[in-house]
């Protein structure tokens, strides 16, 4: 074993991690012991997705190495360990444990520097005040979040890519957000003047104030030493309690500098095309390195460098020959892309521009003089074409793909002769689709042929789409295109009885006016139905006609819970949840609930949805329990239905010192409006009285958050298995507009979504996603607005409390018996024990036999 060598990696960021992965995969560990020293208190994480940390449940979600260690004996990761010096003569590094302060000296045979970059903080007076931050690590975000609790507004200094990313974060934290940029436009590196102004208009619409072409003079502070604003040179002052610097990054090349490695003129450790530094045992990769003197602030070039060094250590031929600096991102919901020679610096190049100021779309293509090759471009407001354009780009080393006859068609909207969508079909197999992970169209097609049938599985087999995510639409289009080419249909059939989708079922019911399952089945189905199509059709009928779910022949179609208007429990008993709109309940109401639970011996628990659940009710007792509740003015809470559950509320401006609108009143109004609405899956709402968001409204299918001017409406939030934050649909709405948008949104969802598809995945599944929802709901592009509102009006007008109606109808009550031949006998299989002074179900190993009633001689 004495011939094993030691490879030390300094820095466990995105690139350092990729390097170690490559080292393990390619067998470098056969000859090397690998030691990685990382300064941060955790293993590498996805810095590109840093902003999503605010919506992540924990830091672990961003981790690139869940679990925190490599599954290989020869690889050792030490976190919270900073390398403080490098002795090239002795071939050692000195590492300091940041927790204990102990220093260790570690020898190396080969050293890889992957120390990344640090945010640049220009020498603005006042930058040392409390409340001034940078935006690079999870710790930075924790600090910003902490500070935002007591702040109302924030400023980002720097209007580049990262600055806008940081602004997005401040908006999410509920701060009035300002962006200050020295250049006359946003994203000056990627966008031209026209593209920049289009972007400003979008961003200002979202409530972010953009101050471009201004110089900062001083960050001012109040008496306590914390920031209170930013004074602009020869101009006004902006008030804010949080300031985030995002004025670019500088390579962390200090280890190289101090040990005398060659440093590039503009910073970064100078390396050759194998990422070799001026010391033959030292390599540098990622943002700390400067191949040919140039530093790259993106992750993809860093990943390439990691692969090149792994290759070089195995005497492979890999070379780093520069990188594609294309960018596509979604900033505050606005698509922005910039690629290739975006500024038309190539001799003789021509620009083709499409601009629609009203829609906020700006697209530019830069083409060669003869119009046959694409050199670069800029897309703002609609970057759908990015996926097909970028692989076409010609560079000095790559001829790209020939442009079609009329290249302008690539950027014209479809309505004006443009060819959007199916563009991926035209791409050759070599076309690179995912630039972050260097995945070509051919790789994706192979993965599909090998059995990956959806985006999720293609992602996991190829890595495409796992970094910045901008290529996911193209990945999806390639999968669909492949299916279409091979004649494979992606079946939309609901089940073996219906060859059509839920949305189509909704349409046929609407057009033909069928009111029973029987009629729908006869006209559009086969067989007798099943546990999938029966409840689906029942729900579609209920959404449109709002008949009682136990009325007519509907009862047999309902899922278990709807069938008895209660939630079945593990032992066959039921739980009872009365509606408590907005979470507001009177003392008398609470007393009634308490008395009912006591009298029927029920287990009571406060739910996660701001109301009270009573468990352990026997089916035959449900009518009596509800009799008492209905008498006291309670209604069904539909805890059992695929329908509106709760509209959670904070206490709001009626009581809260921070509140700016009456959130309880609004929550009650919304809950009463949408109660009983049968939908593809359950629906939840929330209303918060200010940006502090105590109602967690953005975790709901629809979330309403008060602003000084009205309400912001967010849609598509989800807790549960795949949590998602709701996204802004429209801002600063008055009460009536809020309700009309919500009516439209909910009815559009009820019509369109698949069975058991919550709003978040539904929005994702739409071509155009949230933008599509905005177009339909806010801009009314389909002209459906009033129709959707009328459907909702019809629902509201025909609402009746399901339990009150059941109690009033002896026929509906007939089903609430334990045994048809012994209606009064409780099911002996349901038994309880006690725990913490309340009942709980007793577990049975098998059926229980009522011994006493077995007639002698009965067969066994």
């Amino acid at each position, binding site marked *: 074993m004495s011939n094993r060598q030691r490879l030390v990696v300094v820095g466990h960021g995105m690139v350092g991690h990729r390097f170690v992965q490559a080292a393990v995969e390619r067998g470098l560990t056969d000859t090397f012991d690998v030691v990685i020293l990382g300064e941060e208190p955790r293993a590498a994480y996805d810095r590109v997705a840093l902003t999503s940390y605010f919506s992540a449940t924990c830091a672990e979600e961003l981790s690139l190495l869940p679990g925190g260690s490599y599954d290989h004996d020869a690889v050792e990761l030490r976190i919270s360990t900073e390398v403080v010096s490098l002795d090239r003569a002795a071939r050692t590094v000195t590492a300091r444990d940041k927790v204990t302060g102990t220093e260790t000296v570690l020898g190396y045979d080969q050293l890889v520097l992957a120390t990344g970059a640090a945010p640049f903080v220009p020498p603005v007076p006042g930058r040392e005040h409390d409340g001034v931050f940078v935006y690079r690590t999870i710790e930075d975000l924790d600090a910003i979040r902490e500070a935002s609790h007591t702040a109302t507004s924030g400023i980002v200094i720097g209007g580049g890519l990262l600055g806008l990313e940081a602004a997005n974060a401040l908006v999410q934290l509920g701060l009035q957000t300002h962006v200050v940029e020295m250049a006359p436009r946003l994203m000056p590196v990627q966008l031209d003047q026209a593209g920049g102004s289009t972007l400003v208009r979008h961003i200002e619409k979202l409530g972010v104030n953009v101050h471009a072409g201004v110089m900062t003079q001083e960050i001012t502070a109040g008496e306590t030493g914390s920031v209170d604003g930013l004074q602009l040179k020869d101009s006004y002052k902006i008030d804010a309690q949080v300031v985030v610097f995002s004025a670019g990054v500088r390579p962390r090349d200090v280890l190289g500098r101090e040990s005398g490695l060659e440093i590039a003129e503009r910073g970064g450790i100078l390396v050759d095309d194998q990422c070799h530094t001026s010391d033959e045992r030292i390599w540098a990769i990622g943002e700390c390195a400067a191949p040919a003197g140039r530093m790259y602030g993106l992750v993809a070039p860093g990943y390439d460098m990691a692969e090149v060094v792994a290759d070089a250590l195995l005497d492979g031929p890999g070379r780093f020959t520069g990188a594609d600096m294309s960018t596509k991102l979604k900033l505050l919901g606005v698509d922005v892309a910039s690629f290739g020679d975006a500024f038309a610096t190539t001799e003789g190049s021509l620009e083709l521009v499409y601009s629609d100021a009203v829609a906020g779309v700006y697209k530019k293509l830069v083409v060669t003089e003869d119009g046959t090759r694409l050199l670069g471009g800029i897309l703002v407001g609609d970057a759908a074409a990015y996926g097909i354009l970028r692989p076409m780009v010609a560079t000095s080393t790559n001829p790209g793909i020939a442009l079609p006859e009329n290249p302008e068609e690539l950027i014209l909207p479809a309505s004006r002769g443009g060819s959007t969508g199916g563009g991926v079909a035209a791409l050759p197999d070599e076309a690179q689709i995912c630039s972050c992970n260097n995945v070509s169209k051919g790789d994706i097609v192979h993965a599909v042929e090998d059995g990956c049938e959806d985006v999720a599985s293609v992602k996991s087999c190829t890595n495409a789409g796992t970094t910045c995510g901008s290529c996911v639409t193209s990945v999806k289009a390639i999968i669909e295109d492949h299916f279409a080419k091979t004649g494979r249909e992606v079946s939309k059939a609901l089940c*073996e*009885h219906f060859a059509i989708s839920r949305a189509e079922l909704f349409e046929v019911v609407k057009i033909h006016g069928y009111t029973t399952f029987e009629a729908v089945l006869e006209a559009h189905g086969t*067989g*007798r*139905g*099943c*546990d999938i*199509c*029966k*409840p689906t059709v029942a729900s579609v009928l209920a959404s449109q006609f709002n008949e009682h779910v136990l009325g007519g*022949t509907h*009862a*047999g*179609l*309902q*899922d*278990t819970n709807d*069938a*008895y208007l209660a939630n*079945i429990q*593990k*032992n*066959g008993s039921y739980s009872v949840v009365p509606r408590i709109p907005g979470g507001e309940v009177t003392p008398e109401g609470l007393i009634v609930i308490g008395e009912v639970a006591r009298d029927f011996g029920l287990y009571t628990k406060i739910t996660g949805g701001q109301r009270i659940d009573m468990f352990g009710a026997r089916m035959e007792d449900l009518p009596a329990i509800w009799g008492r509740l209905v008498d006291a003015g309670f209604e069904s809470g539909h805890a059992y239905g695929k329908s509106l559950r709760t509209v959670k509320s904070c206490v709001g401006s009626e009581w809260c010192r921070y509140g700016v609108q009456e959130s309880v009143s609004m929550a009650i109004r919304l809950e009463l409006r949408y109660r009983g609405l049968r939908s593809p899956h359950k629906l939840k709402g929330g209303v918060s009285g200010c940006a502090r968001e105590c109602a967690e409204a953005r975790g709901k299918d629809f979330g309403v958050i008060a602003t000084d001017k009205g309400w912001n409406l967010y849609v598509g939030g989800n807790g549960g298995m795949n949590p998602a934050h709701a996204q802004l649909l429209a801002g600063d709405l008055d009460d009536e507009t809020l309700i009309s948008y919500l009516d439209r949104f909910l009815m559009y969802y009820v019509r369109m979504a698949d069975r058991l598809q919550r709003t978040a995945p539904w929005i994702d599944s739409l071509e155009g996603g949230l933008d599509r929802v905005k177009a339909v709901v806010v801009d009314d592009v389909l002209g459906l607005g009033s129709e959707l509102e009328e459907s909702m009006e019809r629902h509201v007008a025909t609402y009746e409390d399901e339990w009150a109606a059941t109690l009033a109808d002896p026929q509906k009550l007939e*089903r609430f018996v*334990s*045994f*048809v*031949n*012994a209606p009064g*006998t409780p*099911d*002996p*299989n*349901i038994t309880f024990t006690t725990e913490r002074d309340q009942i709980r179900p007793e*577990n*049975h*190993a*098998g*059926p*229980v*036999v*009522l*011994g*006493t*009633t*077995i*007639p002698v001689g*009965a*067969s*066994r």
Partner: protein
Amino acid sequence: MTATLPDHTTTDEWEPVCRLEQVPAEAGVAALVRGEAVALFRDHRDEVYALSNVCPFARASVLSRGIVGTRSGVPFVASPMKKQPFRLADGVCLDDEAVRVDTWDVKVDGGVVLVGAKRTPA
């Protein structure tokens, strides 16, 4: 509408349980037969079936509350707990043939549903 009587069954073991109309069309109802909870189902051809009411997966007495339908023409009930499908004719779970719920002989006579002996599996 009449069930074939296995050899070991004698007619005096038939227990009248309810009227046919009390078993809802293409749905089920629970009955207490000789101390056991029995689920009675009626399919689209008015055929009546008697299965144990206890779902073997959930170990709860609930099967009568499941949705009744067909799979490739075969009538079945989906357990209301976790949706496992059981063939009405013999109680076999369509997704896992090793699992089976007990069934009883059943017949309709003069509009009355009668439950006979518990069947022994073939």
